[in-house]
């Protein structure tokens, strides 16, 4: 829909030289080595990206992708190795130099300032000024508009960024890269917070930019997307280059195997078994503008999935259940007891646990150590006459470390030093230690690599087998298909369908999630 206008790109981008594309790559990184505190994280890694190529950079968390990209972006300096751009040896000693070489880095957490306007974000740090030093607002708006029009995006340059959808924020970052005449755009997990149609829009945009000679390095854990949009790939594992080539010739399983070093099953994890009594019953739960008339029951040993697009209200629904949001109407019964939950503490007392989404904002306490994050919600278990017993706490941590396969050398370091997957395992350990009957997982595998994902799925399934009742919230339909007994689909705050886990197809889930089908009392 956006695309027609984009062909005009050469206006502000150098035209692609057809012959150069095959003969000289835009970027070559040769034998890059890097160690932190003596621990090697990159071992002689090389990477080549041609002009107008979308190159997937793959690997589990901690494989060295971010370090490699930070070296390219001028954030870190390599211990060894060289970087060539257009055949020229370059030193990226700071992010600014890297940008001048035509490299832009769009991070997973978008670097847009919500309280500034669109054009102010675009020109942040490189504002146009007249001779007196005042800002040339109209000129900046004009240039911003020019780029936005070319991208087929209908935003007013003077709009405040806080009023925009997430995907538009991403587009602003891309526009900014184009404004700086970037030739290579690095995108780190760009689709994690995007809804389906936004992902489509992003891919179309990438393909069109590609035609005008812009290259991409695309970091993602979603292999389907990579197959869809990328031309070539490089896989890193434990800081080493384990594979590179053209996407077309590979199937996804081979790549997955390269990433984790073993093959991963795509089958359903969860076995159907008989459930115990109802532990949670929700009746006519509504909250103004967030969700309405939600009804469901959860039984002991059951895994319920809730899926839908961004903005479907599922997160808010379960934040209410967990006492984080207080304003709602309707009934919540836990083990046949009517409960009024207005604080997470009461939720825990009633038997609810929540592993929230957006780990960094909602789950981890980054200044506390790994051990202290694990014990935060159950400190009482480690107290003796009011004093915390460090040793018991530590021993408990090592118990979970083994059980959940948490990879950490020294659990006294702060939790922000761990990879996403390991952080999530610590948060899961925290809730296992609280030992509630019902555990809610909101986007449990957000930003987590394939290997750790499987481990987390296995943990969730075994929790249910041990008699816990589990709720999974996820925007990824395949995820709930894989591990849930029953799936609820939500659209704009309402439940639009209920499926049996093994009967749900991704297409059907999508048609209910997008509102194209509605069948409020469909019982699969």
């Amino acid at each position: 829909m956006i695309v027609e206008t984009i062909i005009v790109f050469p206006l502000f981008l150098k035209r692609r030289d057809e012959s150069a594309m095959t003969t000289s790559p835009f970027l070559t990184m040769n034998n890059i080595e890097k160690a932190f505190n003596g621990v090697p994280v990159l071992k002689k890694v090389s990477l080549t990206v041609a002009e107008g190529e979308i190159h997937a950079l793959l690997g589990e968390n901690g494989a060295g992708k971010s370090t490699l990209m930070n070296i390219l972006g001028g954030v870190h300096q390599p211990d060894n190795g060289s970087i060539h751009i257009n055949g020229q040896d370059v030193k990226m000693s700071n992010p600014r130099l890297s940008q001048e070489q035509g490299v832009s880095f769009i991070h997973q957490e978008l670097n847009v300032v919500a309280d500034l306007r669109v054009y102010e974000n675009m020109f942040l740090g490189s504002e146009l000024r007249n001779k007196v030093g005042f800002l040339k607002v109209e000129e900046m708006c004009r240039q911003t508009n020019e780029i936005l029009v070319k991208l087929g995006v209908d935003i007013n340059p003077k709009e405040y960024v806080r009023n925009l959808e997430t995907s538009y924020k991403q587009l602003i970052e891309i526009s900014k890269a184009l404004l700086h005449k970037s030739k290579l755009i690095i995108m780190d997990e760009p689709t994690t917070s995007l809804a389906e149609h936004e992902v489509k829009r992003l891919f179309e945009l990438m393909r069109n930019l590609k035609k005008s000679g812009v290259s991409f390095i695309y970091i993602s854990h979603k292999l389907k997307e990579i197959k869809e949009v990328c031309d070539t790939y490089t896989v890193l594992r434990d800081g080493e280059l384990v594979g590179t080539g053209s996407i077309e010739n590979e199937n996804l399983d081979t790549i997955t195997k390269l990433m984790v070093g073993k093959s991963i099953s795509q089958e359903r994890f969860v076995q159907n078994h008989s459930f115990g009594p109802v532990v949670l019953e929700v009746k006519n739960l509504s909250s103004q503008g967030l969700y309405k008339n939600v009804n469901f029951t959860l039984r002991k040993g059951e895994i319920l999935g809730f899926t839908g697009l961004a903005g479907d209200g599922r997160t808010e629904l379960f934040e209410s259940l967990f006492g984080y949001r207080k304003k709602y109407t309707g009934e919540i019964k836990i083990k046949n007891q009517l409960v009024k939950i207005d604080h997470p503490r009461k939720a825990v007392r009633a038997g609810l646990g929540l592993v929230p989404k957006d780990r960094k904002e909602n789950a981890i306490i980054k200044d506390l150590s790994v051990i202290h994050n694990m014990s935060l919600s159950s400190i009482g278990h480690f107290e003796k006459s009011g004093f915390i017993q460090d040793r018991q706490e530590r021993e408990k941590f090592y118990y979970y470390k083994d059980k959940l396969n948490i990879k950490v050398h020294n659990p006294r370091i702060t939790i922000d030093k761990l990879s996403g997957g390991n952080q999530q395992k610590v948060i899961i350990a925290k809730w296992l230690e609280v030992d509630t009957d019902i555990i809610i997982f909101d986007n449990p595998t957000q930003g987590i690599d394939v290997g750790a994902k499987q481990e987390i799925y296995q943990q969730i399934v075994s929790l249910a087998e041990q008699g816990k009742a589990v709720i999974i919230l996820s925007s990824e339909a395949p995820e709930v298909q894989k591990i849930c007994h029953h799936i609820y689909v939500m659209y704009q705050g309402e439940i639009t369908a209920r499926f049996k886990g093994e009967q749900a197809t991704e297409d059907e889930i999508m048609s209910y999630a997008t509102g194209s089908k509605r069948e409020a009392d469909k019982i699969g």
Partner: protein
Amino acid sequence: MQLAQKGRPIKLANVNTIKQPNQETSNTKSRLSWLWSEYSVIIAFLVIFIAAAVMNPRFLDMNNQLNILMQVSIIGIVALGMTVVMLSGGIDLSVGSVLVLVGVITVLALNATGSILVAILTALVVGSFAGFLNGLMVAKGRIASFIATLGMMAAARSIALYIAEGGSISGEVSSFTAIANSDLWIFDFPVIIFFAMTALVYILMHKTRFGRYVYALGSNEKAALLSAIRVDRVKMGVYTLVGLLVSVAAIIETSRLNSISSSSSGVQYELDAIAAVIIGGTRMTGGRGKIMGTFFGVLILGILNNMMNLMNVSPHLQGFVKGLIIIIAVVFQKRE
């Protein structure tokens, strides 16, 4: 954080030497930077201490040393409380005014009853209550701590001035002065109380769940709440604790001279306390910092004051030097 303090670089080193014998240099470097980041306050303290000893031989005199400790003990106790508030992500500007108010009411209670015990209990109750009110405003009223305690700062001072009619009031029970003017072995009582309070607050912050919750709250309040921590209660506890520590400081201040001035006592105590906390390496936004850092921060400020007095630096210039040191301290800590 608090565990990193006892951290084990050795363990890391072992792992490295097995894997990568050629990483010696970067290892030493990382160990040095670890040492610096963990102990920068103590290193700064030693540097200033040695510099002071070299610049003026009278500095090392035992009486002078004990004198410094005596002089910092009141601010030191207040700064301990300030550390806890700042770790929780807040600030308490009312400490100086509350100290005066507590002092005034304590003297009144002392003179009315003649009982030292009643005077002390009154002090503790009044201080804690003022702190509790701060906590209530911050936690339940959702008022920014800066604003809430700014209000308390103005109000408490005003009440103190009103009660004492703008002047000083003196105690009529002479044995009350024994609290701040006795000594045990070579140490004055206030110094012992300061040390004891340091130890108590240290234990509270590192060995009890209250301390853990304060760090969690200061680092990420939303995550703390979603971890089922009663964030509001912890906040109220934090401000009440400051009030309690302030009242201990107020008892010492009042007992030392057997009187308190409603207009000039406790002035700028909040700034000195905040300065000590900042020099001690606690982060303004909360979640990171140490009680022992504040302890040495207090000592650093004390040594500076003492040096300037010994060297006859004009009292009008002393604030300048103090300001400079605070800024340098923060600049150095930024380097992490």
